[in-house]
């Protein structure tokens, strides 16, 4: 069976000034599955992730060549606001706005002009889907900054769900969380997989092994190996992948 790619790159190269950050990357993120990117620090995995919602545009002196496709459309043909609405992103450190829980959730809705009468229903649905509704339904008007780190991260996920993306990019979403919270966020990811396509960058190989269906291993800007997670972790075809997952370097 042919799996279709929600996100795809062909011969993608990226330069930060003179630094060659991504080298001829051919990559695919399958629909309604979790794809993980692993590799040592500085290998380009976050950079690759940020290509898909064009967050690299915010950095000066970045040059990209090659093609990126979102749902088989070239990324350049998609309006950037539409693109970012369709592709949500969760960051390494939980970063709620210093507003109330409610205002955090309404932010995207206001930006995209979603009618007010739908707000309450959307807020409830999104808080429920990250399992925060019971905890926060009576605290929606308190500051989001007072929540625990895990709840903040869940709130950030709920916040991006409000604008109804199809694809979610997670950039080391658990690195600021304790192991229990990490496991719970992983459960959430598996829950979200039913409705969304997920790409996660992680430092934590066990995490990739636990949650993902497909894994890519990157090293120094090259996508060394890409395939089913079970295969990458049990029978990698490249020596360098083997070396990394068995902990010989990293």
């Amino acid at each position, binding site marked *: 069976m042919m799996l279709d790619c929600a996100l795809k790159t062909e011969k993608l190269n990226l330069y930060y000034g003179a630094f060659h950050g991504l080298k001829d990357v051919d990559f695919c993120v399958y629909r309604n599955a979790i794809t993980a990117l692993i590799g040592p620090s500085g290998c380009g995995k976050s950079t690759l992730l940020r290509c898909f*919602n064009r967050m690299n545009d915010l950095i000066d002196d970045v040059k990209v060549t090659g093609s990126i496709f979102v749902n088989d459309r070239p990324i350049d043909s998609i309006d950037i*606001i539409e693109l970012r609405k369709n592709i949500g992103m969760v960051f390494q450190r939980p*970063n709620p*706005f210093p507003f109330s829980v409610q205002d955090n959730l309404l932010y995207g809705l206001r930006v995209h002009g979603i009618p007010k009468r739908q707000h309450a229903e959307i807020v409830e649905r999104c808080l429920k889907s990250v399992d925060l509704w019971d905890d926060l339904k009576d605290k929606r008007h308190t500051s989001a900054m007072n929540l625990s780190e895990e709840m903040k991260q869940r709130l950030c996920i709920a916040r991006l769900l409000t604008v109804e993306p199809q694809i979610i990019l997670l950039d080391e979403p658990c690195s600021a969380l304790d192991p229990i919270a990490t496991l719970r966020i992983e459960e959430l990811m598996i829950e979200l997989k039913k409705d969304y396509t997920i790409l996660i960058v992680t430092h934590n190989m066990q995490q990739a092994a636990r949650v993902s269906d497909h894994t890519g291993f990157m090293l120094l800007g090259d996508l060394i190996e890409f395939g089913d997670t079970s295969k990458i972790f049990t029978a990698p075809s490249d020596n360098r992948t083997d070396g990394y997952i068995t902990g010989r370097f990293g």
Partner: protein
Amino acid sequence: MRINPRLIDKLVSRTLSMQAYFTVGILVIIVFIIFVKGISNCGLSFMLTYPEDMGRHGGIFPAIIGTLFLVALSILFATPLGIGTAIYLTEYTKESRFTSIIRFGVESLAGIPSIIYGLFGFIFFVIKLGMGWSLLAGAFTMTIMILPTIIRTSEEAIKAVPKNLRIVSHSLGATKWETTVKVVLPSAAPGILTGIMLSIGRAVGETAAVIFTMGSSLRLPTSLMDSGRTMAVHFYILAREGISMEKAYATALVLVVSILAINILAYYTMNKVTSKYS
């Protein structure tokens, strides 16, 4: 011989605390003297009646209204201009020669003595633009004078907003302007408010620039083109020309109490805003 470090520590701590008490002490003494000298002549009727005989008798109602209008107008003009400049410098342009020239200009503007602003306002607004001594000429002059404070405090406040809030806003599909208005400015609001409060204090207390541009008419200003007098100017004239020291102190009392009230109000609102969000 080595002096006992614990002794030095004790001495330093004493000296530093004395310096702090000294500062607060001066403030207390000033307020106390003004209070004692002014309270007997100061009351509701003093604030609500018109002055008679150059201010020797009667109250300071027109001066209070003049102060209110001047401050309100200059804040009204300077705030959007100042915040706009700060937004441009921090969000919409990269650090370059051009921005450093603008910044240098702003810094220089902040260092000019107020009498020079007064002179400029007189030549430009009062004479050249034919506004005459008027509320409007005074407000424009004061606007230029407080602009650097508002720009600099707003700029600092905007810079202090974490970068990742902007990035996450973009990632949700917001444009730069939406990000600025809905994320950056609300987060920077307490700092911006501080700058506005400082500016109010400066405008309320200013005399030199005001006399030259708004004049010193004792009548109640009823239009933007009317001349008028602020409390600070009134105080200056009463004291300088020996009209009435009692009335001068009573005016000073109203002035000091209103500045105090503004500061307390600002502190209170700021606490409210910040505790809501952080």
